[in-house]
């Protein structure tokens, strides 16, 4: 089986794989993580706000998203959002948002649900006494959250947040369903075109493995560095 392996196909396609495919994968991962953390934190604050309407709204959103397969959401967004945009703006044609923006919004909103639960756990891990101490010093809710609670919650949760990001990094490969070329998509295209399925898929697997492994090692080291002294 390995007699007629052509490793050279990998070398020849490296620029395409990395400058087109991997670049897309990394950009999507980073932007969706950043957006997801911001929206997720807001959702977590809503869930913990003690205001029933806000808590219910955020809770419903999180539960809805978490009970849906990601592929379905990607599809749904890509094909339905143009029509929703048309309906909302009253335009003559469906609003074209473009594949990149569509998947970026999808992943951000999808990840926000997961980051919400992580940040919620993080906020709840901070003792109530910390909030009382901040209040007793006259801090308002935004000040106490921004300077006392969230920085501690965030640090406690960094390992979990980054683990979620590594999962997201792998999940971005699902963009193939709307024919967007990420790293795996690029490898797949070359594989089909040159009939080099074994080489390309093997190489793609190794790259995902290497990056994910390196990232989780980095997480472990980071954990030691940023831990709060107690």
């Amino acid at each position, binding site marked *: 089986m390995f007699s007629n392996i052509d490793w050279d196909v990998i070398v020849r396609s490296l620029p395409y794989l990395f400058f087109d495919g991997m670049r897309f994968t990394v950009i999507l991962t980073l932007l969706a993580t950043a957006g997801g953390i911001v929206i997720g934190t807001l959702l977590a604050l809503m869930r913990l706000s003690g205001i029933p309407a806000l808590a219910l709204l955020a809770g419903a959103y999180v539960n809805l998203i978490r009970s849906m397969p990601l592929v379905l959401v990607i599809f749904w967004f890509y094909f339905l959002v143009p029509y929703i945009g048309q309906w909302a703006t009253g335009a003559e044609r469906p609003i074209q948002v473009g594949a990149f923006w569509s998947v970026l919004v999808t992943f951000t909103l999808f990840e926000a649900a997961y980051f919400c639960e992580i940040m919620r756990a993080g906020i709840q891990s901070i*003792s109530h006494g910390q909030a009382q*101490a901040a209040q*007793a010093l006259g*801090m308002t809710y935004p*000040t106490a959250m921004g300077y006392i609670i969230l920085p501690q919650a965030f640090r406690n949760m960094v390992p979990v947040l980054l683990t979620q990001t590594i999962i997201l990094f792998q999940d971005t490969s699902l963009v193939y369903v709307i024919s967007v070329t990420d790293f795996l998509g690029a490898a797949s295209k070359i594989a089909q075109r040159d009939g080099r399925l074994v080489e390309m898929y093997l190489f793609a697997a190794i790259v995902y493995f290497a990056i994910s492994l390196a990232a989780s090692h980095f997480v472990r080291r980071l954990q030691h560095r940023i831990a709060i002294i107690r």
Partner: protein
Amino acid sequence: MITMNKVSKWYGKAQVLKNCSAEIAKGEVVVVCGPSGSGKSTLIKCVNGLEPFNEGTIIVDGISIGDPKTSLPKLRARIGMVFQHFELFPHLSVIRNLSLAQIKVLGRDEKAAIENGMRLLDRVGLHEHAEKFPGQLSGGQQQRVAIARALAMDPIAMLFDEPTSALDPEMIQEVLDVMVALAKDGMTMIVVTHEMGFARKVANRVIFMDKGEIVEDAPTADFFGKPRSERAQLFLSKILQH
């Protein structure tokens, strides 16, 4: 300066404060004692609005705590509070613990806030620990930082919620020394504590609470000399045995 009038509070059906009334004048040091679960901590947390109450009024420096129009953050900035478990911010250095609220709440500029913070660290004898993190200090040192943090806001009164209960015995004295000095300087203080030595030394009055009620409110000498209520006598006999 602080007036409590018939303050009552319920947790569900359980009444934790029953018609508590007391008056604390400017410069007075009042010790609140009583068995655990008697509502002492709850009562002083009502004074700065950390705990809501259901009935009665609390007036601090002319401002009503229960009034929905009162800006609680503004009022709290003027009342210092020291907690049983210190509650320093573990992710911030000692000096940042002292300066943050001065900057964000009082709007002082950073330099003035740090200068003021250093002056207070000096006062509690921890000048050289400014750049350390709370986790690097002993319990007694942390509590002294917490007192300095509250003082940095130039409070009109200080509330202490069992400030020495979480400390190892050998660290209690250093914290009490700071509190005694503060009392001698004329600070208005309400102190929930079991340290009867401290009460004897600096308190003007002792309030004894049991089961959510203020059972006795007497000048210190009277309280230790001849407590009127049986419950206070029983409590004192238990606590003063050793």
